[in-house]
């Protein structure tokens, strides 16, 4: 059990939770969060938003019962964390673009801490949030509201493009990569339903060019050309 130090609403339905403790994790990895006993049954996989020596932070959207319970927690409440899980984004040399759509921006704040030279693209359907956080690290932040953030990314200008957002956006990233065939440099972080989080149940299995893979262990980050089922 760990103690929540803050749980702040940063936009309608979007919360940022801080938990005390020294936690490990690479960019793109996630933790399984649980702040209830029997109901709901399963823990919730939430990606690392940021971490330092004293705290770990999560940015999440309320989409169902689990995240609704998380959103009602306050500083001083307790929570169970298991992790870090998943493979995370690859550590590559060269020029990198971090492209997040909506709550898909969550893994990129920590990614930016690891890759401070990266360019950041943040797309929102409504009022933007957390943009000032990103701007504290870099002035190369592009924000778009109501459009297609990928349209603003110059594919040829980067050695690697990391994408996280709604499935439609990641499929668009796949089409973009196909159009510039042979470069194979786009990586996507999938958001699949999970049960165990450790590769045992196969609930989060995804069809890839290399056969079925587990989002929780083999992902959630995949090279975009590898993903066959969305």
């Amino acid at each position, binding site marked *: 059990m760990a103690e929540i130090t803050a749980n702040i609403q940063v936009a309608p339905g979007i919360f940022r939770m801080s938990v005390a403790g020294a936690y490990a994790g690479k960019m793109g990895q996630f933790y399984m969060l649980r702040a209830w006993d029997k109901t709901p*049954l399963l823990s919730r996989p939430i990606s690392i938003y940021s971490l330092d020596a004293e705290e770990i932070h999560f940015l999440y959207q309320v989409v169902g019962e689990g995240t609704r319970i998380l959103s009602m927690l306050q500083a001083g409440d307790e929570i169970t964390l298991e992790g870090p899980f998943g493979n995370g984004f690859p550590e590559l040399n060269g020029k990198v673009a971090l492209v997040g759509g909506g709550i898909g921006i969550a893994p990129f704040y920590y990614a930016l801490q690891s890759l401070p030279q990266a360019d950041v693209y943040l797309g929102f359907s409504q009022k933007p949030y957390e943009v000032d956080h990103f701007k504290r690290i870099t002035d190369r932040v592009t924000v778009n509201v109501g459009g297609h953030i990928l349209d603003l990314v110059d594919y040829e200008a980067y050695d690697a493009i990391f994408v996280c957002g709604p499935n439609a956006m990641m499929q668009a990233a796949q089409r973009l990569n196909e159009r510039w065939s042979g470069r194979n440099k786009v990586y996507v972080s999938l958001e699949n339903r999970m049960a165990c989080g450790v590769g045992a149940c196969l609930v989060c*299995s995804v069809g890839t060019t290399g056969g079925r893979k587990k989002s929780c262990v083999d992902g959630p980050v995949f090279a975009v050309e590898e993903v066959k089922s969305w």
Partner: protein
Amino acid sequence: MMDTTCHIAGIAFRNPIVMASGTFGFGHEYNRFYPLDRIGGFSGKGLTLHPKSGNEGLRSWETAAGMLNSVGLENPGIPAFLSTEAERWENYDVVRILNLGGSSLEDYERGAALIEEDYKHRQQRGKKAVDMIELNISCPNVKAGGMAYGIQTETARTVVGLVRKATTLPLIVKLSPNAEDIVSMALMCEEEGAEAVSLVNTFSAMKIDIYKRRSVFENSYAGLSGPAIKPIALRMVHQVCQSVHIPVMGLGGISSAEDILEFIMAGAEVVQVGTHNFVDLRAGENLSRDLENLMRQLGISSLKEIRGIV
């Protein structure tokens, strides 16, 4: 000294906690969270003769006190398992159960024959990777075979008979709660020479997306597990224990030491823990400790004292 040991077909289980197939991977997934020698045994991910990619589309849905799954027996196939994973199994100090699935009589039979062949080869080297076979005739998520065999007793008899002849390993048959008559199904397994039965697998169930006006699952139906099914599973285990002479592995929604004692009082020799592994990654370690504490608290020194007393 607390006695938690249990026996099936002469094989000793350290305690009655056996991790259920489909929820425990091949064991190593959980071995990093606690040593597997804390539990009595585990049943690996269901294996079929040929690799299976499982079902497309959404594979799980949470329900009140349970979950639906539609994994569809995704697995690497028996030959791949035997040539890679089984070597790791050789080193586990716990009862190792290979769960055998299939979609045709021939597949079940050939699968069992391959396992038997591998068993004999390892035996010659003084090694052992598998202690028992759990025959899965009850998967509700596989269209051909799977549950089709698990519903009618006389259809199931053919599969059980074939597999029984194909292997010398102790045979457990995993029964479906969707069987027409679970007691006659269990009696048939006993007649055909199975050493034990395990029950129950998941209940065939459904979830409809009212906005899209369709089932959330490609196969329409999925398997319900978790605490929601426990009282029904317990009743079925009780009924079967009243009727058969072979040991019963009881399962269905077990998530506490209290649940374990309920199933043992209903007559189960050991229990299987499934969905609870997703709730608590250290379920095996925690349940074994909780069980000993509860037995101490209730003045139970051996599970034999309470088995089948209800």
